[in-house]
């Protein structure tokens, strides 16, 4: 009985092998044709789609990043430019102010000068007038006082010399 049992455990049954081989080949053919081919292709398709969408998402993100960076750059540039403009304007204003000041000063100066000149001329004129008046007055007075004692010519000469001896101014 032992021997019969031993055979049954590790004995190779050719009939069974033929059946199993036929079954296995049919099984493999049926399964790979009707199950795995469409199944694997479906999986691949889905994976492809996922990969594609991942890639496109990445691309979109990269694009958005690029845009953000560009925007930031532009903003920075604009700020720099604005600052520059402000600085320029300030400088110009300063320049203008200085110019105005200078001009005003010059004008003032000129006006003062003119006023001084005028005053000088007026003074001269006034002095001349005064001298003439004084001469006349002195002459009149002298003539009144001296009357005909002295002729006009002599008198005038006298007065002139008197006036000349007066200190100027």
């Amino acid at each position, binding site marked *: 009985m*032992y021997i019969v*049992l*031993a055979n049954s*455990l590790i004995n190779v049954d050719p009939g069974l092998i033929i059946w199993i081989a036929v079954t296995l080949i049919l099984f493999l053919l049926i399964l790979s044709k009707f199950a795995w081919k469409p199944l694997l292709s479906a999986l691949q398709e889905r994976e492809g789609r996922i990969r594609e969408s991942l890639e496109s998402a990445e691309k979109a993100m990269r694009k958005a990043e690029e845009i953000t960076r560009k925007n930031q750059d532009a903003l920075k540039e604009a700020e720099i430019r604005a600052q520059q403009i402000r600085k320029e304007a300030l400088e110009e204003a300063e320049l203008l102010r200085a110019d105005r000041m200078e001009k005003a000063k010059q004008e003032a100066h000129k006006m003062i000068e003119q006023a001084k000149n005028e005053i000088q001329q007026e003074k001269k004129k006034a002095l001349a007038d005064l001298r003439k008046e004084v001469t006349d007055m002195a002459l009149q007075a002298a003539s009144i006082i001296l009357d005909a004692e002295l002729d006009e010519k002599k008198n005038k000469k006298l007065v002139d010399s008197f006036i000349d001896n007066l200190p100027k101014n």
Partner: protein
Amino acid sequence: MEEFANFAHLAAGIGAAITLLGAGFGIGMIGKSAMDATARQPEASGDIRTSMIISAGLIEGATFFALAICIILAFK
């Protein structure tokens, strides 16, 4: 002849025991090395597990040759 058949049974048992000693030691060594390697490089644990199973399977294959001989002896 009957006497020798009994000795064959004994030989089968002893043979199986020695085979399992060797195989157990070998697989134990693989397990130890794999554990060490996993502890050192936890990020490579997947690869280590795969190669561990492969080498354990190869050892197992060799063991089965011996066990097949034992089975044949046992049924002599």
